[in-house]
């Protein structure tokens, strides 16, 4: 029998079997994405056999007015949703961090509700809500996106609140006291000391809100009125007819946007955390 070797926790990564397992996990996770990206450059209509490199699907995707509109809608919705979610989420986090009030515990738990409620239920609820209050369906563009934006904000801002709330836990209250002591008003202290501390949380939360909004399908499906279409909904309807490499190309662009946004946000975050 082979002699047993004592291993430190990090040594396990040097075992060949462990390495193979790790590689397997990565293959399982990323192969579908890789294939999607690869076949967006395939010179064939069918997503089956590699026939040669081409960029024509990208041109085609860009020429597809509907797809372009959908992409622009999605980016617009995600942008507006991010701004509103960051403001609301930050305020909510601040209120729960700073103040004591009756029913704070239940309210704080209730803040997580939009995160745990199944999307399909949330979607139906949003649909019924807008129908019930008779929200106008015939607003001119881009105001016809309002319902989708409102729906997205409802489920995105709690994510911001949770991230910012966690960040505030590490705030040293003496910093705020020091600002007051040096002559700042309560608002000036909030602006000059608390917000800079919140910044990494605001960026991370904002990024979360952006990506959540950008790729949401279920809730958007229920909240969108006639004539408003977002990118995920558009892709879904295209796939129902046939999976063309055009869809691959469009999806690759979305992946690119989200990866880019993530990298930028992580950079911003590491820059601000280094300060504190």
């Amino acid at each position, binding site marked *: 029998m082979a002699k047993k070797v004592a291993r430190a926790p990090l040594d396990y990564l040097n075992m060949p079997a462990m390495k193979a397992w790790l590689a397997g996990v990565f293959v399982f996770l990323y192969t579908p994405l890789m294939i999607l990206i690869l076949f967006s450059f395939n010179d064939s209509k069918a997503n089956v056999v590699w026939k040669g490199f081409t960029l024509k699907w990208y041109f085609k995707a860009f020429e597809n007015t509907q797809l372009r509109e959908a992409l622009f809608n999605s980016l617009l919705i995600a942008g507006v949703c991010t701004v509103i979610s960051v403001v609301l989420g930050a305020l909510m986090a601040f209120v729960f961090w700073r103040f004591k009030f009756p029913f704070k515990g239940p309210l704080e738990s209730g803040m997580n509700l939009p995160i745990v409620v199944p999307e399909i239920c949330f979607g139906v609820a949003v649909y019924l809500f807008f129908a019930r209050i008779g929200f106008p369906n015939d607003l001119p563009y881009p105001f016809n996106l309002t319902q989708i934006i409102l729906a997205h904000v409802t489920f995105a801002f709690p994510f911001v609140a949770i991230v910012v709330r966690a960040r505030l836990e590490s705030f*040293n209250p*003496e*910093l705020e*006291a*020091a*600002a*007051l*002591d*040096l*002559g*700042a*008003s309560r608002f*000036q202290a909030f602006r*000059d*000391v608390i917000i*800079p*501390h919140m910044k990494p949380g605001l960026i991370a939360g904002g990024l979360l809100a952006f990506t959540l909004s950008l790729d949401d399908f279920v809730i958007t499906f229920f909240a969108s009125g006639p004539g408003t279409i977002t990118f995920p909904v558009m892709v879904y309807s295209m796939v129902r007819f046939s999976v063309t490499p055009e869809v691959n190309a469009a999806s690759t662009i979305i992946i690119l946007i989200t990866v880019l946004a993530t990298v930028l946000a992580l950079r911003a975050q590491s820059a*601000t955390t*280094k*300060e*504190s």
Partner: protein
Amino acid sequence: MSDRDAIIRVEEVSKRYGKVTAVDRVTLEIPRGEFFALLGPSGCGKTTLLRMLAGFEMPSEGKIFIDGIDMSTIPPNKRPVNMVFQSYAVFPHMTVFENVAYGLKFDNVAKADQYGRVMAALADVKLDHLAERKPDQMSGGQRQRVALARALVKKPKVLLLDEPLSALDAKLREAMRFELAELQDKVGITFVMVTHDQDEALAMAGRCAVMDRGKLMQTATPSNLYEFPANKFVADFIGSVNLFEGTLEVDEPDHAIVQSEELGGRIFFDHGVSGAGGEKMWVGIRPEKIELLKREEGAAPPTPEDAPSGCNVTAGTVRQISYLGSESIYEIDLINGRRMQVSRPNLSRWDQEDFTWDDQVWLRWHGDSPVLLQS
């Protein structure tokens, strides 16, 4: 002390949190230009009192006057005091310069004058060469200097310091004691420091207020606190002391005698203790005021040579020795079993060899040394 000289007047101030009384009817005056220390064990209310001076807490009762002005309705950002926080609270996202300049923004100081004042404040704390640094590139001691400069640049009437040396390592702490005292001398601003470290308070402050459980115990100069403590708590809290319970037997203008079972005899005072009153008293004797003398095995009573008139003498055996370099501390068991602490400076390089474990000794102290205390 007349009103005119007091920069801070605390009148009958109490602070209650629900049923807990953090500060209990404290009345205090702090003269202008003094280095004042609020001293006490943790939870004695000293920090609460400091926070009330800064305006972060409001008194439940009583009034605080700073430079003659009632502070009852004045928020922290409008008070002529600035604070150095225990964590230093240096703003992490600003440079050293920006940190120090921050408070000037609210004082209507012209932009042109700001630079000069900030650099002068930084020079006062010897940090002018690091103005562009970020706090995360600085040591704890340097961050404290930033906090000091940031408060002093506003030229406050009083500078409040919350446990200023507690986060520093031992060597730096010692150096900072002198430096803070020098800085105070140089800028001439009244410093009020909170500390639980009696050495710190005695070393730096011109006057100290000792607090216990919300109450003010004694306000005095460091040497008066040590040599003339007002009660048992102060005697015990400041430095080391041997305490013996006893009853006052003779109370004359020029001498007094206390009978103490604990000490196994009578303690002679060569001065009157009039006004002390009360049946049960405490006698306190500082360890360094007791002399150790060699004693013949089993010898008792002491010879007149061992016990000149006006002195107290008792017998004991050396049980423990702590050699501390500059001095040695001896734990002596008295004949009745009570333990007594005696400290002895090592004036020559062989002094620590004079006494060893189980040595028979006389303990002798002058009638001037003990203090009579009420509990």
